Every structure is written in structure tokens, then in C-alpha cells.
């Protein structure tokens, strides 16, 4: 019995060590919150474009990627060479603590300046969009909210949900920009509506689909994906402005292969890479790339979109903790 156990342990641990294996080729890690489908689409393309290096992906939610990198950095060293998540504020933080490698890529010359860090530490590579979503069989077209402000109308009481800004970076950006637009009284009104703020974006979609909460604040890409499966969830682009979540790409200063990393950044702005992103339901920062299928064209969206630039980013960044605390106090407790 004991011997059997012992050999099982030894075998198990040995296979663990073997499983990790070894490789001589230059190895680069991309830590990202991109969807698996998008990565699957990109992987062979990137491999063909940059054959000299072995590029590995670590995928997780924005917050988990940030958590992993932060913990690794706290210990002194991160394995990530490039990071690509949807929380712009985290990049501001990394930049200020000198963890990012500045790179002014020629491939990004068509990206509007408000979507670039002035010091070239990071640049927007995709733009997820926060909008409102509703259950199309439970709400008549004439009852729909038209703006963020409408969500405080009595008829939407107990019908609202959103992701938690503590758990999802995109929800945080939404809260930050909405509080800037409408003030904290808006959230106090939402609290009176019994707004549920929990989980990530797909939890919001699930709550709408099951009719637990038929109205939600959610990413457009989640709505498009649900629709492709035949879901009755539909999008509303609010009149007072959809919320952009400019999601950057950046190179870590600690990378051993800065030249390859720069080539990867360039590649992410190629048409092939940008198309893969758009296929995932996000907008491209490049005007020449078409908008996602079944989504409002970018040109129209831009006309009704909350403003974004590096000044706003810096301003919201400096009050980041305050925004989270304020939100927790009003909504969560």
C-alpha cells in the first residue's frame, strides 16, 4: 500500500517535471485577455510572420493577467514580454513605475493620437465598446431606454445589471467614464433601482438571457457573440455616448528580445491581425479596417461616443482608487 502510494507520487511528480520540457528557440510570451477564438485565428499568422521565435500565449481575464504580472513583478521578474489586455489604467500604472519599453512604431502612424500614449509606452490596438443590452422579447421597442440617464426611470426598477468594476477592467472603464459624465448621484439613483453589479460581461448576458435582469451595461462583443448563437439579446447605443475601452499593447522593459517584441507590435497593426480583432466583435483603431459584422459602423459610433484621450486617462488614473471605493460604497454595500 505504502509503496504503491510512494511510486504513484514519484511517477506523478516526475511526469510534472517532464511535461514542462525544454526548448532552445527564442521564447516570447504574450499575456493577453484576447478571446481564445481570436488567438486561434492569430496564432498561425503570427507564426508565419515571425518564424525566428517561439511565441507563447497566456490567456486570462484582464484582471487575472494583471494580477499575475503584478505578483511576478512584486517578486522582481515577469515572464511576459508583451501585454495586451483591456484595462488602459493598468498600462498607465506600469508606465509610471517604469516597467514598459517605449516604442514608436511606424505601423501605428494611422492610429489617432488620442489613442496613443504621448511617450509611446503603449498604444491602443483594439477598442471594445460598452453599450446597453436588453432582452428583445421582454421589452417592447417603445419602452427601451435611449440613454444612460434613462436607466434611472422607475420602469426599469429591479431590471438592471452590470459587471463589477472590481472584477472586470471594462466595467471599471464604464464606471469611470459614466461618473465623469453624470456624477456620482447617477450611481446613487442606480442603487435605488437595485442595480446588480457582479461578475464579468458574460454574467450580464446570462442574466439578460435568463430574464433575471433584462437590461444591462455590457460589451458589444458579448452581445454580438450571443446573437450569433441565436440569443434574443440586442444592443442599444446610448444617445449620451457609447463607452470606448481603448485596449493597449505594450512591451515589457524586462524583455530579453526587444527586437522581436517590436516586430510583434508592428504585426498587431497589420490588416490580418486587425481583421482577426474585428472578427472578435471589437473595433479597430485604424479607420481603414471595417467595423464588426452586425455592429454600428465606426464612423457613426464615433459621433456618439464619450471622449477619450491621454489627459482623461491620466486624470481618471489618478483617481482610480477613489472611483473604485466610491462605487463600492454606493453600489456594493
Amino acid at each position, binding site marked *: 500500500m505504502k509503496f504503491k502510494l510512494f511510486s504513484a507520487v514519484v511517477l506523478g511528480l516526475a511526469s510534472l517535471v517532464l511535461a514542462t520540457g525544454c526548448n532552445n528557440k527564442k521564447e516570447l510570451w504574450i499575456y493577453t485577455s484576447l478571446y481564445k477564438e481570436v488567438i486561434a485565428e492569430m496564432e498561425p499568422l503570427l507564426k508565419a510572420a515571425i518564424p525566428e521565435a517561439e511565441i507563447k500565449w497566456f490567456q486570462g481575464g484582464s484582471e487575472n493577467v494583471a494580477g499575475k504580472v503584478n505578483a511576478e513583478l512584486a517578486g522582481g521578474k515577469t515572464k511576459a514580454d508583451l501585454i495586451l489586455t483591456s484595462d488602459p489604467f493598468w498600462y498607465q500604472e506600469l508606465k509610471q513605475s517604469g516597467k514598459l519599453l517605449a516604442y514608436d512604431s511606424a505601423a501605428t502612424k494611422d492610429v489617432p493620437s488620442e489613442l496613443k500614449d504621448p511617450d509611446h509606452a503603449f498604444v491602443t490596438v483594439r477598442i471594445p465598446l460598452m453599450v446597453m443590452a436588453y432582452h428583445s422579447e421582454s421589452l417592447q421597442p417603445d419602452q427601451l431606454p435611449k440613454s444612460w440617464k434613462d436607466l434611472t426611470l422607475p420602469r426599469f426598477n429591479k431590471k438592471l445589471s452590470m459587471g463589477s468594476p472590481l472584477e472586470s477592467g471594462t466595467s471599471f472603464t464604464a464606471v469611470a467614464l459614466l461618473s465623469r459624465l453624470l456624477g456620482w448621484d447617477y450611481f446613487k439613483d442606480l442603487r435605488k433601482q437595485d442595480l446588480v453589479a457582479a461578475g464579468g460581461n458574460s454574467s450580464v448576458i446570462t442574466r439578460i438571457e435568463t*430574464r433575471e435582469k433584462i437590461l444591462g451595461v455590457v460589451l458589444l462583443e458579448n452581445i454580438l457573440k450571443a446573437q450569433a448563437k441565436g440569443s434574443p439579446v440586442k444592443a442599444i447605443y446610448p444617445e449620451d455616448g457609447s463607452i470606448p475601452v481603448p485596449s493597449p499593447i505594450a512591451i515589457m522593459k524586462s524583455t530579453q528580445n526587444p527586437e522581436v517584441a517590436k516586430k510583434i507590435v508592428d504585426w498587431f497593426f497589420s490588416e490580418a491581425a486587425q481583421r482577426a480583432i474585428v472578427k472578435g466583435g471589437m473595433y479597430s483603431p485604424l479607420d481603414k479596417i471595417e467595423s464588426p459584422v452586425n455592429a454600428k459602423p465606426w464612423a457613426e459610433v464615433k459621433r456618439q461616443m464619450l471622449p477619450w484621450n491621454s489627459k482623461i486617462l491620466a486624470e481618471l488614473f489618478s483617481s482610480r482608487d477613489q472611483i473604485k471605493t466610491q462605487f463600492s460604497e454606493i453600489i456594493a454595500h
Partner: protein
Amino acid sequence: MSVLLEATLRSVQISLITAMVSGLLGVVLAWLVSRTEFTSRKTVASLLSVPYALPPYLLGMAWVVLGNPTVGILRAFLPSNGAYGTLGICFVLSSVAFAFPYLELRAGFDRLDSSLEEAARISGASPVKVFRDISLPLLWPALVNGMCLAFLYALASFGVPAILGLPVRQFVLTTLIYSQLKLGGQAGLIEGFKISLLLLTIAACALGFSHYLTSLKNRLGASISGARSSRPSRIQLGRLAPLVMSVTWLWILLTLVLPWIALTLSALAPIAGSYSPSTFTLRNLSYVLNLADFHEALVNSAVLSVSVASLVVLLGFCLGFLSVRKKKPWASRLIRFFGIPFATPGTVLAFFIIFIFSTLARLGFNADYPLLLMAIAYTLKYAAVGANSLETAYTQIHPSLEEAARISGARTVKLLSTIWAPLLKQSMKAAWLLAFLPLATELTMSVLLTGPGSATLGTVLFQLQEYADQPSAAALAWMLLTLALVIGLMTRKKEIY
């Protein structure tokens, strides 16, 4: 009332209720299964050990469907909050945590010399009196230990209070730590650290208290001889049988069957919440089955959980021996110490491990293999399960057996292989399952420690829930639940009686 105080009280309240309910259920169910006879007893026995195989967040997911206050099928039978809130959390946690006292007590009943009970019964004692005066005192350490594990389990649980508590703004300490860590910034980190210490203090108190309770009865000289003379004669329940059976089956229905049905329907639904049979689809299942990550996760989870569970049992076997039989104080202290990582929320534990290994990497010692880190985290977290239950089991073996063997000239190795290993087999099996089953689907720590090539079943499920949609997540959850059922039913065949 401050949020922290409220969360502390709620954590303690939930853990206490869960421990009490689990203890009560564990005693009653283990007694019914081990000492009475009723139709379908063997099926009940194996079904009751199944819930433990389930990560409680799976049951939480199922209960959000079943007990949703707006749309759940069972909402009419539930309070206004539905399955959300403290009561729902206690219920879901108990439906898993009762397995701690249940499995401990069943192993205890197996070691218990049933001739003691029979002697009392022949002398005219009623079954209740036999249980109260004979079985319970002898099984005391197993019960206390099982309840203590249930308490710690509830205290450190994160998934269930997150799924069922946060939507109604009810925080417990673990979710509060999580939200403080997520608040970010230095202040959040320090606050989170403080709450972690508070959580550890509560856990340490619980451990100390359980240690005190166990030693209390040890002084009374209760121990179990290993000589199991004959198979126990079982009590016929007679008139009570239908009542007992229906209550037992209702429990199984609520904790196993209904969640399983809920997940099945969710897995078949083309979109969340549309449960009409005409639209059912296998799309979600085939999507999961064809996922490359799923294949990878299957291998990783199997290797990790089997080797760590074996390691933990082996460790418990050795430490229990050193602590109880060799009276080594360091061994018993080490066993107490394992209670700390067990009671620590996985999130905090994982953070510390990442931190330590990054520091090592900076010093030139690179051991940053996610699978290795997970193995270490799992071992730390579950060492208490093996060590505590085997230590308890050692204390229940009467020293006379060992002395007899020693007098006959047996050395330590011989003693281990001829006395303890056979007598402890049942406890070792129980402890192995107690470690293996939750590890196979571990989520909280894995999600932070995972890296490329080291997906586990838990992380894939989490990915699906976060990035895909509820039906795909439900499809994987359904597979795991079904697998657990199969394992539960298979272990039943191996039972001798």
C-alpha cells in the same frame, strides 16, 4: 455597522451553521448507512459521498438556475431572495461539507467494534441509547474533526459566497478580501492583508477548539480496538423506514439530482434560460469536447490530483505515526500547522506562492513551472485533510495491538505494514478521496497559478464562464458532475459488505 464587522459576523455565522448542519447530517446519515438496514441502502451510501466530488461553485451555478428569485423553478418554495443570500450559501456549502463528518464517521463506524454496540443492545438499550452512550463517545474525535473541517471549509470558501452573496450585496471575509485586492492600490493590499490575518485567527481558534474537544474525550479513555469481530448486525427501521427513506432521498434529490437536472438542461439549452426541449442542442457539449484546452486540462488535472492526493495521504500516514505513536511534538505541531494553509483562502495562498517563486527566480533559481507551483499549492492546501484524518485514525487504534505485535518481535516497518496500513486502509481511502476529488476541479488557486500548457479543468470551466457563455460552461460543469456520479457509483462496488 461597518462592512468588515458585518462580513466577519456573516463568515462566522455561515461557518458555524455549515459545521452544525454538516455534523448533524453526517452523524445521522453515517449511522443510517453503517448501522441500519433499509432498501437501497448501498445506493444511498455511495450517492452521499458524491457531493464532495463537486466543486461547490458548480452547485452554486445550478442553484442560481433553480432558486433564482426572478425566474427559478423553485423560487416559490424559497425566501424572497431565492437561493441568494446567507441561507442559500449555508445550504449549498452544507450540501458539500457534510461529506467531511460523513466520510470520517463512516470510516469510524467501520473501525468501531460492533460487539460493543451489540452487547448494549442485548442488554436492552434502545438504538438511540446505544448510539448516544456507546457509538458517539467512541466516534467523538472523528465527529469533531469532521465538523472542524466543515467549519474551515466554509470559512475559506470563495466561489459560493461570490456567486450567491455578491448579487445581494452580502459580503463574507473571503469575498471582502477579494474585493479589497481588486480595489487595487497600496491601501487595498494592506486592508486585504489585515482581513487575511483576521481570517487566519478565526481559523486558528477553530482548530485549537477542535483540538481541545478531541483531547477532552481522549482523557476519558475512549478508543477503538482494531479487532472487528464480525460484520455489524443492522437495525431494522421498521415503521420509521418510509419516513427515514423519504427524508434521505429528499436530501439526495435537493443536493444532487436537482442540480444535475438544472445543469443538464442548461447544457442542452442553445442560449441561457431557454429550456424548451424542441430547441435542445448538443452544440455546447461538442464545443467543449473539441476544445484543445479541454484535452490538455484533462491530462493536467488527472496527473496533478492523483499525485498530490497520494502525496498528502502518505504525508498524513507518516506524520500521524510520528505524532501519535512516536509522540514527536514537532510532528503534531506540523499537523496543526497544516490547518493554516487549509483555512487560508486559495487566492491569498496562490499570491504568496507566486511571490516566493518570483523572488527565487530573481535569485537565479528558476522553478517557474505552473504545474509545479500548482502541485505545491495543492499539497499545502490539502495536507490538512490527510494529516488530520489519519492522525485521528491513529488515536482510535488501541495501543494493545501494537504492543502485542511488538512483544512478538515486530519492528516498525512490520508494524506499519501489518497493523496500521490494513487498519487505516479505510481512513486512507477516505482521505485520498477527500483530497483527490476537490483537486480534480480546483479553481481558486489554479486560476492564478496557471500558465500556457497548464490549463486544468477548473480553469477551463472558469474561462468558459467568463469568455464563452453560460451554456458552454454548463456543458463542462455537467460533464464533471456526471463523472463524479460515475466515480461515486464505482467506488460502491468495491465495498465488501
